[in-house]
């Protein structure tokens, strides 16, 4: 499922056995009471299902062009109209779920896999390790994201995989920095000081107190990061350097629609809506998860 849920699960497991059931149970109950969160879960589940079942849902193949049917407005035959070469927009959006989720999740996965360990290390170890990691973060942040992505794509070529890689290499910085900042701030909070006074070990403090408390903003960051990645891919498409055709990415569809939108509104509106729904889904889900865990921890 979504990486944010996965991250949350991981956190729960780190809580240690005796607490686990209570914490998870509490969180789940709290989550279930939150209507918005459930709506978010519903949207994200729907997206994932759409991606998995695209072959059954889409009425047409995503790459079947037919110039004689180009640029048709929505009709009973083509619910969202057809694009500039006569491909069914609805089918492309359905298949695009796969691509856009792959871009969003792929980029965020890279971000989490690199960002969490480094962020933890920097925030907890401090000293020279923190120093080196933060210099590393700065090296990457010091290069403008768009320019780095462009450079990498110019050198290694475009295509879905390279686009995800190029965007992921930029995206982990926020995760790392955010986690570290949270840890820095939390380190000095009352409950940590209390734990320390009571003689808790550093690792124990980190795992039992710091990480769970730092996870909430991280979840929010991930839920925002997914659509941001989808966006960044749209930006590359605007420059003519996104994923290759006929692969249907929503970002590419929006980018392409730019020169058609004034007349063929459906080319711009539907992919934008798809991005918006994804965004809403992950946002509500992320907020819900945060609320669920947050309250149980600060109790």
């Amino acid at each position, binding site marked *: 499922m979504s990486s944010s849920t996965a991250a949350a699960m991981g956190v729960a497991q780190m809580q240690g056995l005796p607490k686990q059931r209570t914490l998870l149970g509490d969180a789940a109950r709290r989550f279930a009471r939150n209507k*918005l969160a459930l709506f978010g879960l519903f949207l994200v589940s729907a997206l994932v299902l759409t991606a998995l079942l695209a072959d059954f849902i889409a009425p047409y193949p995503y790459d079947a062009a037919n110039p004689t049917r180009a640029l048709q407005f929505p009709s009973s035959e083509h619910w969202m109209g057809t694009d500039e070469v006569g491909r069914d927009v609805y089918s492309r959006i359905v298949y695009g779920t796969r691509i856009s989720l792959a871009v969003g999740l792929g980029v965020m996965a890279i971000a989490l896999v690199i960002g969490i360990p480094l962020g933890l290390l920097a925030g907890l170890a*401090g000293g020279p390790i*923190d*120093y080196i990691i*933060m*210099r590393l973060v*700065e*090296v990457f*942040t*010091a*290069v*403008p*994201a*768009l*320019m780095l992505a*462009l*450079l*990498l794509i*110019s*050198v290694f070529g475009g295509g879905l995989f390279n686009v995800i890689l190029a965007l992921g290499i930029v995206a982990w*910085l*926020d995760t790392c*920095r*955010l986690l570290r*900042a*949270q840890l*820095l*701030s939390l*380190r*000095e*909070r*009352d409950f940590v000081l209390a734990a320390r006074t009571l003689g808790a070990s550093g690792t124990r403090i980190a795992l039992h107190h710091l990480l769970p408390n730092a996870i*909430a*903003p991280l979840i*929010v*960051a991930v839920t*925002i990061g997914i*659509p*941001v990645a989808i*966006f960044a891919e*749209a*930006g590359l498409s*605007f*420059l003519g350097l996104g994923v290759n055709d006929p692969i249907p990415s929503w970002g590419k569809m929006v980018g392409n629609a*730019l020169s058609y*939108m*004034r007349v063929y509104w459906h080319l*711009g509106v539907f992919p*934008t809506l798809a*991005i*918006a729904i994804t*965004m*809403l889904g992950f*946002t509500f889900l992320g*907020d819900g998860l*945060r*609320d669920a865990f*947050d*309250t149980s921890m*600060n109790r």
Partner: protein
Amino acid sequence: MARYLLGRLGGILVVFFIVSVVVFLLMHAIPGGPYNEDKVPLSAEAKANYMRKYGLDRPLVEQYLLYMGNALRGDFGVPFQSPTETVTGLIARTWPVSASLGLAALLVALPLGLLLGMVAASRQNTWIDYTASTISTLGLTVPNFVVAVWLVLLFAVQFKWLPTGGWGQWHHYIMPVAALALAPMALTARYTRTSILEVSRSDYIRTARSKGLSDRQIMLRHTLRNAMIPLLTILAPQIPNLITGTIFIESIFRVPGLGKFFVTSILGRDYPMIMALLLLVAVVWSLVYLITDILYVVVDPRVRLGKSKT
């Protein structure tokens, strides 16, 4: 503090060095050169002539050392894409344009975002919260170049209130600032809301409340202040992006800023310009980060700078 700052400055120099080497290697790995080749292939000799003209026939190490040597003396060379000026001159001409646009967008986005976020948080789970959240979600959902195109069609072509683009008068700011401010505003609103909610549940706010402080006082004196840390973290990276310009907005509104050069330098294999832009952004980044770190201490006295934990 002074020792910390010195350390940071040393770190910045290391960053510069690594960035310059990595980028230098990357950009020379891009296929093609600064020569124009369109209809008929250039002969090998003609290409060689061209490379010689710009000193690109020398070994990379030598080129790098030469470039850095000149750069240290303040000579960043001549941009291939605009040989009638220097790189420094080009940046001096275009950067202020982008920076003024970015700062204007920031000045619009920050207060609006804070307001939206505070309103949403103080009325959590009401229609006010939902409305504010929807607005901020929309801001993050529609790419700004799409917004920009619609702004032009609406306000320039349809209503004829504003010119479609251009630069030099105050009204040229309106549309690009609106398009640019949307995302940072939305981001600010979201993080403000999240952080305020989080902080307001913490013990010291409960204490404050039990002491009988009004909601308003608590919001201003405690909550907002504590909510600033994540906000700083998330907003700081937006600033260098905003003030160094964006091709998406600048090309649509004909703003003669720095933004397009981030793209054209790579497309045109304009090596001196690529290097200069990267070093420029590296400087801006480093400064923003230094300031952010110091601000952490200001807003949250419990954060200690540079001291390793006991």
